[in-house]
């Protein structure tokens, strides 16, 4: 496999060869990376021609970190130092009792004053799920670099049902792995993208995604290149792992062993066996196996330990898990305002949908033979690659657009511990909404704001995302102050909250991270630590990144100037051009900070021009529509521009992370 064509060599040394954007499916059980090659998405294979990288990370005695199949091989012997299914721990609280159920690990309680995240003791080290995930992402990045030489930005997929903390943790892991995260993309939407583009199907679809550890159901409408998600639902702790666990319990029963008394190593061995039996039962009606505990535990034919599990028995074991997915499916259909028989197709995603019981259950429930002709384990990464390519400006299908939604309602706690919903679930992103509140007590000088996510009425039953206090309000009588809270959710599904007291103008903006996440300083420190281990040269990387960003901004600004010269005010063009020239000069130098400053200057110089361009885009979009509606007159289109121009006393967005 050493034939390197000469053009390949040229590519390596071609300084102008653009970095390639990649799509990553960071899965519970397996992860993979893909990119668009000759207009077709393809997965990157390792030296053994395998696309799937087991999402397993082993921390060795000598400080070495092993990822993938080699880590998997060490899991039985080192159950505590080998983290599997780390995705289940992402964004969870260190004190969350649910996390203890999820593996044989040595958990470390968070110290007072540190972030409330899960911590694993692995040998002499303590690592967080974000760091473990970053190891997986780093492996994938290297794999892609071997093939592409230079990797640009990355789209990383997340279950649609991931809450804010889980999304933020995923983005942090990407940063920690040295990736520029272009976008977090919902897995079902990615899958639909892979199907929709290749088959050119319009219609109503459900995406049934049963992965290793998560279940998602998404209802979406494909129409002329727009993928509009109507509703999404699921369970972020339900998947193939649960099938393995149900099978493992059956194995313990068959061998007469007590699962409770098993050592972590034994549990791991039985779980691995369970997974192999599950795979075997995809094609076979019965799988025979030897007892993992040797002859002692059972009554096999020749005094040995031959046991077997039939597919019928496995179907029985799986049935309760499928019933759990059913409730989520019915709710998603209801939220979308659709009946199962209106659907044009059901797309299967995730390795667990290979299980025959799952396929027949889906066919029965939706009355529709499911679509599975794209490998259900690759389809998400392929879709992510398409989206990465589009975001990098290289896609040919310019009119493709993904309109995703917020999976769980967002709100704040008000009097009596009740949740006031500000953005309900299934609101299309990006989203922004405001709510106004007042003080309940005289002379109250601070507002405590508790941000929660979930569908329950009481804040205590929802996921707590952040608490902060707006301080410095002068004492007033109860009911006099007017607090305006703005929620914004970006296209990644990440929330930021802004609070402002109207009378005094006191205001505060937070990116919602603190409750279960790592703050920016911690992530930055982790990055530095990784560098200390002799991995990469942070300064050089930073300079390279900021140069790419600067060139991109300069090029795009020139394009905007050329596209709408009539929107420029006198003198504005020369001011912007001067800022571009300054920026280009800075790119020639080696001072990253200086380049950043010049980007900011150019940003300031183009602010109002950008607003005018956006208003023109709006007017054009509406006029285009008005042509086919008689009632809609040109007057309306004109009115729009004014409405949008004055609509925006939305507070400034927080600095993007």
């Amino acid at each position, binding site marked *: 496999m050493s034939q390197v064509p000469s053009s390949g060599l040229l590519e390596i040394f071609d300084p102008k060869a653009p970095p390639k954007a990649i799509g990553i499916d960071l899965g519970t059980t397996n992860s993979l990376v893909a990119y668009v090659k000759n207009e077709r998405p393809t997965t990157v294979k390792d030296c053994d021609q395998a696309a799937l990288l087991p999402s397993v990370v082993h921390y060795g005695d000598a400080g070495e970190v092993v990822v993938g199949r080699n880590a998997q091989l060490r899991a039985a012997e080192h159950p505590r130092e080998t983290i599997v299914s780390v995705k289940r721990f992402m964004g969870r609280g260190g004190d969350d009792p649910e996390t203890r159920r999820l593996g044989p690990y040595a958990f470390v309680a968070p110290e007072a004053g540190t972030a409330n995240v899960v911590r694993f003791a692995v040998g002499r080290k303590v690592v967080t799920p974000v760091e473990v995930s970053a190891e997986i992402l780093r492996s994938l990045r290297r794999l892609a670099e071997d093939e592409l030489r230079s990797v640009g930005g990355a789209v990383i997929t997340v279950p649609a049902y991931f809450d804010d903390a889980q999304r933020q943790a995923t983005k942090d892991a990407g940063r920690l792995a040295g990736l520029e995260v272009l976008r977090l993309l919902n897995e079902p939407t990615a899958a639909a993208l892979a199907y929709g583009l290749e088959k050119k199907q319009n219609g109503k679809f459900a995406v049934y995604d049963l992965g290793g550890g998560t279940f998602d159901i998404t209802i979406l409408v494909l129409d002329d290149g727009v993928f509009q998600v109507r509703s999404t639902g699921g369970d972020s702790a339900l998947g193939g792992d649960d099938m393995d666990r149900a099978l493992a319990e059956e194995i313990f029963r068959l061998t007469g062993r007590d699962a409770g008394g098993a050592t972590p190593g034994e549990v791991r061995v039985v779980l691995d066996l369970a997974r192999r039996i599950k795979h075997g039962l995809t094609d076979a009606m019965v799988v025979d196996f030897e007892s993992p505990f040797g002859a002692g535990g059972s009554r096999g034919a020749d005094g040995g330990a031959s046991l077997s599990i039939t597919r019928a028995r496995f179907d029985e074991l799986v049935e309760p898990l499928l019933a759990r997915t059913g409730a989520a499916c019915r709710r998603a259909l209801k939220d979308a305002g659709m009946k199962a028989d209106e659907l044009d197709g059901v797309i299967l995603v995730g390795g667990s949908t290979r299980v025959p019981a799952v396929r027949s259950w889906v066919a029965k429930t939706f009355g529709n033979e499911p679509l599975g002709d794209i490998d259900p384990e690759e389809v998400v990464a392929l879709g992510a690659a398409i989206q990465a390519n589009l975001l990098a400006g290289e896609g040919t299908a310019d009119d493709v657009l993904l309109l995703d939604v917020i999976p769980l309602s967002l709100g704040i706690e008000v009097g009596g511990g009740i949740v006031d919903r500000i953005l309900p679930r299934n609101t299309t992103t990006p989203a922004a909404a405001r709510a106004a509140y007042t003080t309940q007590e005289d002379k109250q000088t601070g507002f405590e704001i508790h941000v929660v996510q979930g569908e329950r009425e009481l804040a205590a039953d929802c996921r707590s995302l952040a608490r902060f206090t707006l301080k410095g309000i002068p004492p007033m009588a109860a009911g006099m102050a007017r607090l305006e809270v703005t929620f914004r959710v970006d296209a990644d599904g990440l929330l930021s909250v802004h609070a402002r007291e109207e009378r005094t103008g006191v205001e505060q903006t937070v990116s919602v991270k603190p409750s279960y996440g790592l703050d920016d300083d911690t992530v930055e420190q982790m990055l530095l630590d990784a560098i200390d281990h002799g991995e990469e040269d942070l300064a050089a990387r930073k300079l390279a990144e900021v140069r790419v960003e600067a060139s991109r901004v300069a090029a795009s600004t020139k394009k905007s100037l050329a596209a709408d010269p009539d929107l420029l005010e006198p003198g504005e063009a020369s001011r912007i051009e001067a800022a571009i020239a300054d920026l280009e000069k800075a790119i020639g130098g080696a001072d990253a900070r200086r380049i950043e400053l010049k980007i900011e200057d150019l940003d300031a110089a*183009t602010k109002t021009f950008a607003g005018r361009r956006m208003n023109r885009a709006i007017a054009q979009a509406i006029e285009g529509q008005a042509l086919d509606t008689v009632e809609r007159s040109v007057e309306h289109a004109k009115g729009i521009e004014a409405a949008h121009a004055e609509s925006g006393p939305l507070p400034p967005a927080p600095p993007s992370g």
Partner: protein
Amino acid sequence: MDPFATLGAPRRFDLDLSALEKTHRELSRALHPDKFAQAGASERRAALEKAANVNEAWRALRDPIRRAEALFQAEGLAVGETHEPKASPAFLMAVMEEREALSEARAARDLAKVKTLGAGIASRAKTAESRLTAGFAGGSPSKDELATLLPLLGELRFYRRFLDEVEAIEEEAEEAALARANEVSS
């Protein structure tokens, strides 16, 4: 923010929602942040903000209650339960009776009765909506007209809560029936 102006829709209650959905889609195509991934920060920020406004406007207009609220707000009236006049005693009385009937039907597991009560309220909600349609059909209503229309908002909110409850009862019954069917089959 006036959602009618944001989406270029006429200020009336009976909107052509499928045409408006198309407008929303075209605006999203023009403004979605993904379309500006390669742009400078100022354009990305502007696009994000406008796209969020457009989404919020569409969310408001496709919901009859929020659409009605926006119509009153556009006429300079404050809406929300604390700002609107109190409901008439006659309405409150009628409402209380319906509620009681619903809880009795729920307790008696009388699903047919629950459905009948729901259908009755749904038709009253329709009547209220058609009064709003008529009221806002010919441009700005007069002050007096607005005053007679405003209580319809409170009524619509009540009807919605009632219908939500009907739906919850029906769902509960369906889930229970499914659970029983599963027990039998396994």
